C-alpha cells in the first residue's frame, strides 16, 4: 500500500477501503469544497401515520438492506446496550455480508461482534475499537481498515459525504408512532440522544427502536419523527444499571487527588478561575471539578457554563449556582439523566452544535478550560489517546480531539501507569498536533508548552512543580526503564486516525505477535 508523509511527518495511506484520503496538512489548513451530503427527498404519501413494523427484520428488509451497506448507531446505552449484538446476529441470519459498521462508540459488551468480523458479516468498523475488538483489529484480522474519528469528526464525515450511512438505527428510551424520540423518559433512560442526530439527519433510511412507546407526541422530540422511516418495538433495549458509566466515583487514589489539586491550582493561578470548563467522567476529571468548585466558592466566582458528560457532581454545582448551564453531550449517571429532564438550565447538545469542525463555529471553541487524559504525550507535545505504548488500539477518540480547542487545554495523568511511562520520546500514534496541548500535569511535575509563553510568564512565581516536558520524560524513564518497542508491520495499516477536518493524522499498523 502506498503511504505518504503528512505535515507531521507521519506515514499515512492515500486510499482506505477504496476511498481516497487526504493527509493531515496542519490545523485549519484543509478547507473542504462543495455542498453537504443530502439524503433523498421523501414524500408524505409513502409514510403512514403509524410507522411501526412488526420486527427489526422487517424494518431492515424494508430499508433494502444488502451486502456492503453502512449501518450507523449511537452508544448512549454504553455497556448496557441490548441492541447491537442481536442486530448483527439478525443481519448474519439474513445472509447479509460486508457491512461497514459505524457506531459512535463500542463497549466491552460488544465483544461478540468479533464473530461477525471473522465471518465477514462486518467488513470493517468506523468507530472506536477497544479491548478485544481493538486487539483483533490491531493484529490485522479485520477485512477492511478501521477508521477512528472523534465525535465531532463522525458528524463532519457524515455531513461531508465521507461516511455515507445507508441505514441509521436509533435505539430510543421513549418514542411515538411517528418516530419522535428522546432519551430521558422510560426504563432505559440514558440522557441525551444527540449522537444519533447525525444518523437521523443524513442517513438514507432511519429506524427507531424503543421499549417505551408513548402516545403521540413524544415530548421532547430530540429525534424528530419527520426524519424517521420505521418504528420497531422491542422488549428491552438497555440495562439501566449498565447505561450509567462505572467511572463516576471520585478517585480515592492519593496520587490522582494530588494531580486534581494541581489542576485546580494551575487553573486559578493561570487566570482561568471562573472560566467555563469541560468536565468528563473518570477519577481525575471528577476530582478536579470538586477542587475547582472550592476555589470558585472561596473567591466568589461562577462559571458561565460547563460541558458534560454530566454527573451528580456537575448537577450539584448547577443547583448551587456555581455554573450557569450544563451543556451536555452525554449523561454518565442517573442524576445527570434526571437533571437533563427536569432542569431547564441543563441542555442537551449534539456533536453538531458542540464539536463539528465543518460548521460556522462550535461550542468547543467557547470552552475556557478543558482537562483531558491521554495514553501518551511526547516531548514535542504530540498526544495519543487511541493506542497503548505496545501499539494496540485501546481507546476511542470520543470528544477528546474536539475539546482540545479550549482556551486552556490540560492533559492530566499519572506520569506512569503500572510501569508504563506516559510521557515518552515519541508517541505511538499521533491523535493531536502539538500546538493544541497547553499543559501536561502529572504528580511529578507540570510542563507548559513552550508555545504558551503567556502561561509560562503567569506561572513564573507559582509553587507548583513546573518543569520542562523533557524532565518528565527523563523522570519517567529513570523510574520505569525503557519499554520495548512493539514489532509492527509497516506494510499493513490496520486503522487510520482522522483529524477533526477529515484528514488523516496518523496510521495504526499491524502488530506482529511473537
Amino acid at each position, binding site marked *: 500500500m502506498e503511504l505518504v508523509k503528512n505535515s507531521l511527518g507521519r506515514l499515512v495511506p492515500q486510499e482506505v477501503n477504496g476511498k481516497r484520503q487526504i493527509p493531515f496538512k496542519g490545523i485549519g489548513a484543509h478547507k473542504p469544497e462543495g455542498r453537504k451530503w443530502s439524503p433523498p427527498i421523501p414524500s408524505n404519501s409513502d409514510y403512514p401515520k403509524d410507522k411501526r413494523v412488526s420486527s427489526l427484520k422487517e424494518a431492515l428488509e424494508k430499508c433494502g438492506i444488502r451486502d456492503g451497506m453502512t449501518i450507523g448507531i449511537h452508544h448512549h446505552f454504553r455497556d448496557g446496550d441490548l441492541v447491537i449484538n442481536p442486530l448483527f446476529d439478525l443481519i448474519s441470519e439474513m445472509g447479509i455480508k460486508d457491512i461497514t459498521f459505524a457506531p459512535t462508540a463500542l463497549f466491552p459488551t460488544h465483544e461478540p461482534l468479533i464473530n461477525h468480523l471473522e465471518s465477514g458479516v462486518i467488513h470493517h468498523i468506523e468507530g472506536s475499537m477497544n479491548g478485544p475488538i481493538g486487539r483483533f483489529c490491531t493484529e490485522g484480522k479485520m477485512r477492511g481498515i478501521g477508521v477512528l474519528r472523534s465525535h465531532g469528526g463522525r458528524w463532519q464525515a457524515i455531513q461531508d459525504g465521507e461516511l455515507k450511512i445507508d441505514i441509521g438505527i436509533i435505539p430510543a428510551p421513549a418514542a411515538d408512532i411517528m418516530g419522535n424520540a428522546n432519551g430521558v423518559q422510560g426504563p432505559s433512560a440514558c440522557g441525551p440522544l444527540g449522537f444519533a442526530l447525525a444518523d437521523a439527519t443524513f442517513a438514507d433510511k432511519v429506524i427507531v427502536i424503543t421499549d417505551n412507546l408513548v402516545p403521540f407526541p413524544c415530548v421532547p422530540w430530540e429525534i424528530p419523527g419527520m426524519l424517521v422511516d420505521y418504528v420497531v418495538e422491542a422488549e428491552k433495549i438497555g440495562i439501566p444499571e449498565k447505561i450509567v458509566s462505572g467511572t463516576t466515583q471520585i478517585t480515592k487514589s*492519593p*496520587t490522582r*487527588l*494530588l494531580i486534581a489539586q494541581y489542576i485546580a491550582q494551575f487553573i486559578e493561578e493561570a487566570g482561568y478561575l471562573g472560566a467555563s470548563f469541560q468536565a468528563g467522567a473518570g477519577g481525575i476529571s471528577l476530582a478536579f471539578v470538586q477542587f475547582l468548585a472550592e476555589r470558585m466558592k472561596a473567591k466568589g466566582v461562577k462559571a458561565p457554563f460547563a460541558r458534560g458528560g454530566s454527573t451528580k457532581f456537575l448537577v450539584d454545582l448547577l443547583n448551587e449556582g456555581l455554573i450557569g448551564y450544563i451543556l451536555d453531550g452525554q449523561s454518565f449517571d442517573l442524576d445527570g439523566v434526571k437533571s437533563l429532564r427536569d432542569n431547564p438550565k441543563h441542555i442537551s447538545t449534539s456533536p453538531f452544535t458542540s464539536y463539528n469542525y465543518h460548521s460556522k463555529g462550535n461550542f468547543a471553541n467557547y470552552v475556557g478550560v478543558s482537562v483531558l487524559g491521554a495514553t501518551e504525550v511526547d516531548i514535542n507535545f504530540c498526544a495519543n489517546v487511541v493506542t*497503548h*505504548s*505496545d501499539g*494496540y488500539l485501546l481507546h476511542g477518540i470520543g470528544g477528546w480531539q474536539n475539546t482540545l480547542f479550549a482556551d486552556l487545554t490540560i492533559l492530566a495523568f499519572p506520569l506512569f*501507569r*503500572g*510501569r*508504563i511511562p506516559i510521557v515518552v520520546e515519541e508517541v505511538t500514534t499521533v491523535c493531536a498536533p502539538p500546538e493544541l496541548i497547553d499543559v501536561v500535569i502529572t*504528580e*511529578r511535575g507540570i510542563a507548559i508548552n513552550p508555545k504558551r509563553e503567556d502561561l509560562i510568564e503567569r506561572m513564573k512565581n507559582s509553587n507548583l512543580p513546573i518543569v520542562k516536558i523533557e524532565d518528565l520524560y527523563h523522570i519517567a524513564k*529513570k*523510574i*520505569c*526503564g525503557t*519499554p*520495548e518497542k*512493539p514489532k509492527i508491520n509497516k506494510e499493513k495499516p490496520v486503522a487510520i486516525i482522522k483529524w477533526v477536518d477529515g484528514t488523516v493524522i496518523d496510521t495504526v499498523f499491524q502488530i506482529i505477535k511473537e
Partner: protein
Amino acid sequence: MVSVGRDSKEDIFLKIEKEEGQQHIIEIESSVKNLFGKHIKELILENLKKLDIPPLRIDVKDNGALDFVILARLEAGIKRLFPDLKFKFLPEKSFEDRIQAPKERPRRSRLYVPGNQPDLMINAYLFKPDGIILDLEDSVAPSEKDAALILVRNALMVLDFGQSERMVRINQLPKGLKDLPEILETDGVDCILVPKAERGEDIGQLSLFIKEYLNKIGVVRNIWLMPIIESALGVLKAYEIASSCPEVCSLAFGAEDFTKDIGAQRTREGRESFVARSMLVLGARAAGVPPIDTVFSDVEDMEGLLSSVKEAQALGFEGKGCIHPRQIEVIHKGFKPTEEEFQWALKVKKAYEEAKEKGLGVVALGTKMIDPPVVERALKLIKLAEIYGMKEA
C-alpha cells in the same frame, strides 16, 4: 518450592523451584509483558548467573513491579530456597553522597508505609510528609519479615524521598538489631524508629551498635533515633530513654499498644492515655527532646484528625503520626502558627536582638520582662512559620 512477593499492583509474585534440566527456566506472566517481559526475564537471568546454584524454574506473575522490587523479591525467594547462600541483588543507587541530616528539623508528620508494599512507597514523598517511615514492624506479617527487609533496603537505595526524612521502623529489640546491617549499608537512612522502648540502656546500646557498624563499613554520619513509647513501663522511663544518648532526636508515643498494655480500650477522646502522653511530654522536654504524638487511625475523619492535632499541640507535642497521605495536609495545617503567634514571636525576636546589640542582659517587650526560654520558643516558632511561608510584613 518457595514463593515470595505479592500478586498485587506494582509488585511481583515468584514461585521458585529446582529444575531437573540443564538451565534456568523463567516463565513470565505480566501486566506489562509486551513492554517489559523480555527485560524482566533478562534481569532475572543476569542475576541468577552471579550465583553458584543448580538450575531453577521460576514462575513470574508481575503487575508492573519496578526493577528494585523485582530484585528484592528474587533475592528473598532464592534465600528462602537456599538459606545458607550469602549474596545480595542490589539495585543501582539513585543518589550520590548524602549530606548529614540535621538532628533538629520539623517532624510534624511522619507517614507510615508498610515495608512489604512497594506500591505505597513509590509515591509517598509526593505528599510531602516531614518523614517517611518504611515499616518493618507491625505492618509486616511475621512470615514476610525477610522479604520486607530486603525490599526496604532496595527502596532506600532507589526511591526519591524528596524533602522528607528517611526513616525506618525496625522490629522490637533485640530482634530489631538484626534489621540494622541491611538498612545501614544503604547509607540511605536518616532516622531509626525503635518500637516499644522501655529502657534507656537499650537505646544507648543500640546507638553504640549503630556507631560501631557504621565505623566498620566506613560511613561517617549520625543516624538519629526516635524511640516509641508504647507501654506503661516505657512511659515511666520516658526521661531515661529520651536522655539515653545524644542521637535521640525525639520521643514518640504509640497509643494502640499502650492502651493494650494498660488493659484499657482506645477511645476517640483518648482519656485512657492522657496522663501517659503528658508524662511523655515531661520526660522528653526534661531531656531537651521534642515529643511526638501517636497516629490518628480514622483516615476518613479529617475534622477529628484536626482536633486531635490541636489537642496534641496543646499538650506540648510537635508532631503526629499518619497512616494515609491525605492526613498530612491536615496535620500540617494543625501545627501552623497563627498570625497572632507569629507577630508576637517577631516582636520578641526584635526585642531580643535589640537587647543583644545594646549588650543588655535582660530582654524586655514593652514593660514586660522576657525570660530566655520564651525567647527560645519565639525563635523556634519563627522557624516553623518559615516552613509555611509566613513572612514578616
